């Protein structure tokens, strides 16, 4: 065997034995010398390496820190916005947290300050209580109401004589006969001094925390003595009360000769106006420092005494209010802690108890009314029932006198008149019917014109936007306008509906002029959205020169036909 041969055989053997290792070595060499391949390997190992190194001794961290710092610095220098964006969620939260902490500290400080203030206040209240001989709780109550009607006086308009008077048991009423006469004299004085027309009602007097709201009626007026800040809705409550009194006592008011007996029962009507609303949150803010003064027992005793008195008084007022409301007959009113239970009878046409009681029931979470339905013969409900079942056209006015005579007046078609004459006598509470003032309108278009001109839409003070209720009413009227429009077209006439907006006399002329127009415009817009061509309408604004109350703020329609 030659040398070369031997060499080659050895080489073959070596290749045979070592070739896998050889290949592996070459690969490893390549892994180490080619950066791309090394990176691929490191990528797999680095996370683990970092993790392990972070666990034991943070040499890696220490080694990396300066680099990271440098990297961060460079990044911020190069692109500060990027950094801000990255940090925004963190900073936002941090800042909020800091602000919240500062805020709650501030609140604590304020609370502290308030408490000391209240403690001064409570001392003041105690002083007032001691001075006036009333309980501390009463004083607290008097000072923690948003508003409270303390007294209601019903006063004969002409003579200033007192017709009726209701007061809270907790209020000391000054001589009421003198007060009512003086109120009348003051109104005369104001009217005379400022040349105000006789009919103009004097709305309110105000002295310190005390307000006197005056609601004028034709024969009598109502003066409500109110503490705090009453809401505007109270005006409506007073007006309703006054209207009810005028309705119930109409004959005696007509010719009043100073006989108090005539108005012996007026109190139940006035009770309904004794509304109040408490201040939220102040109730039960027990002054702990009073403990230190040893006054808590005293406070509690008087509070509980007053509380039970107050509950009884409240229930009596609630029962009074409901009983005075037509369509209610209340047998029992019970305070069940968080809810109020009513037992008795209710005409389904009467307003729901929650509406009648308004803020009186606010302190209860809910009302449980076990009210059996019945048909009340109170005139207002008889009238309501008649309106429902007889469905008079808008141009007919139904009235009911005290003897139960139901009268209809205005324009109607023959079919309705027949329905009225046949159906009205069958209604409960109607003893006679009178249709002498009904004018029979022969054509459909005559009836529609009469209905549209009789229609009116009233507005709240300084209000030109339409409520849901108003929009619904306009929808009903729009159907009539549309019908009249198609009739007049068929007869080759052009229908022109003038929408007249009115305002009351309060406020500036320019504002009122603009308001009157805005009212008319919003009604026009509502008609137009109901599909009536806009060119049917003209709008006009008017200002009522002499205030006449609610009826001043309204919309009326005037109808014309033009030849093409």
């Amino acid at each position, binding site marked *: 065997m030659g040398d070369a041969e031997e060499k080659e055989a050895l080489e073959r053997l070596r290749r045979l034995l070592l070739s896998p290792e050889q290949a592996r070595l070459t690969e490893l060499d390549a892994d180490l010398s080619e950066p791309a391949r090394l990176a691929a390997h490191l990528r797999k190992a680095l996370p683990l390496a970092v993790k392990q190194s972070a666990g034991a001794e943070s040499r890696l961290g220490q080694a990396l820190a300066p680099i990271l710092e440098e990297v961060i610095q460079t990044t911020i220098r190069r692109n500060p916005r990027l950094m801000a964006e990255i940090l925004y969620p963190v900073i936002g939260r941090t800042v909020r947290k800091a602000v919240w902490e500062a805020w709650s500290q501030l609140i604590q400080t304020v609370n502290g300050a308030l408490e000391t203030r209240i403690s001064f206040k409570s001392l003041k209240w105690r002083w007032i209580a001691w001075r006036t001989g009333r309980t501390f709780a009463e004083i607290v109550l008097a000072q923690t109401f948003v508003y409270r009607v303390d007294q209601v006086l019903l006063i*004969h*308009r*002409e*003579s*200033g*004589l*007192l017709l009726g008077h209701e007061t809270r048991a907790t209020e000391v009423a*000054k*001589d009421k*006969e*003198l*007060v009512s*006469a*003086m109120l009348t*004299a*003051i109104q*005369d*004085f104001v*009217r*005379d001094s400022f040349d105000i027309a*006789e009919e103009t009602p004097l709305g309110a007097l105000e002295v310190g925390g005390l307000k006197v709201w005056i609601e004028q009626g034709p024969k009598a007026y109502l003066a409500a003595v109110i503490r705090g800040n009453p809401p505007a809705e109270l005006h409506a409550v007073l007006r309703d009360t006054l209207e009810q009194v005028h309705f119930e006592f109409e004959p005696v008011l007509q010719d009043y*000769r*100073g*006989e*108090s*007996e005539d108005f012996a029962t007026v109190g139940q009507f006035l009770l309904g106006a004794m509304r109040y609303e408490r201040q939220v949150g102040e109730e039960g803010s027990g002054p702990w420092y009073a403990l230190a003064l040893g006054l808590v027992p005293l406070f509690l005793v008087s509070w509980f005494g007053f509380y039970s008195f107050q509950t009884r008084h409240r229930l009596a007022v609630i029962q009074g209010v409901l009983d005075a409301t037509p369509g209610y007959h209340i047998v029992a009113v019970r305070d069940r802690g968080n809810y109020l239970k009513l037992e008795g009878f209710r005409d389904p046409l009467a307003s729901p108890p929650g509406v009648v009681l308004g803020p009186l029931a606010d302190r209860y979470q809910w009302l449980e009314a076990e009210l059996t339905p019945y048909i009340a013969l109170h005139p207002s409900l008889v009238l309501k029932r008649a309106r429902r079942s007889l469905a008079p056209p808008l141009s007919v006015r139904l009235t009911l006198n005290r003897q139960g005579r139901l009268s209809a007046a205005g324009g109607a078609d023959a079919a309705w008149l027949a329905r009225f004459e046949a159906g009205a006598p069958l209604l409960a509470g109607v003893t006679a019917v009178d249709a002498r003032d009904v004018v029979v309108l022969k054509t459909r278009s005559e009836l529609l014109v009469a209905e549209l001109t009789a229609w009116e839409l009233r507005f709240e003070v300084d209000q030109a936007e339409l409520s849901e209720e108003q929009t619904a009413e306009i929808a009903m009227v729009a159907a009539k306008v549309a019908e009249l429009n198609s009739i007049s077209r068929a007869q080759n006439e052009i229908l022109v509906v003038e929408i007249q907006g009115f305002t009351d006399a309060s406020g500036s002329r320019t504002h009122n002029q603009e308001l009157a127009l805005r009212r008319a415009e919003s009604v026009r817009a509502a008609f137009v959205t109901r599909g009536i061509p806009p060119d049917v309408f003209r709008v006009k604004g008017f200002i009522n020169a002499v205030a006449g109350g609610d009826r001043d703020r309204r919309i009326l329609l005037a109808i014309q036909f033009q030849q093409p």
Partner: protein
Amino acid sequence: MLQKKVCLLGSFSVGKTSLIAQFVHGIFGEKYLTTIGVKIDKRRVTTEKGETTLVIWDLNGQDDLQKVRLANLRGSSGFLFVVDGTRPATLNVVLELDALVQREMGALPRLLLLNKCDLQDEWLLEASRVEELRAAGWHVKRTSAKTGEQVAEAFGALAEMMVR
């Protein structure tokens, strides 16, 4: 229980306010007379119809008829006219006021009070004049705010006339 509004009328300083001062119950001070021109007081009297409350409107002196505030007179059931017996001119004012009241409100119960009857020396109203007034249908009473003479009687008499 009856209530009646009564107006007290007459010239300045005939003693209207002091006439009633000790016979009535009031809560308003005299400043109301000079500010709003009216002061209200009341007095309870017993008549044949039972207890009656008189709500008395003491009106500021009305020498100038133009300035009488008619609204203050409305609803009144009776009138007390006051004359100063030492100043006969005050009677003329009262007669004019009476004519105004009759024109505006018709015939209503009224009483004429000749006040300051305690000042006998200065009394200038002739007896014959008083007789003429009585003959003309006036109910006349001589009163003194100082001594209280006839004042309570005057309220009682007017009340009886009003409830009748």
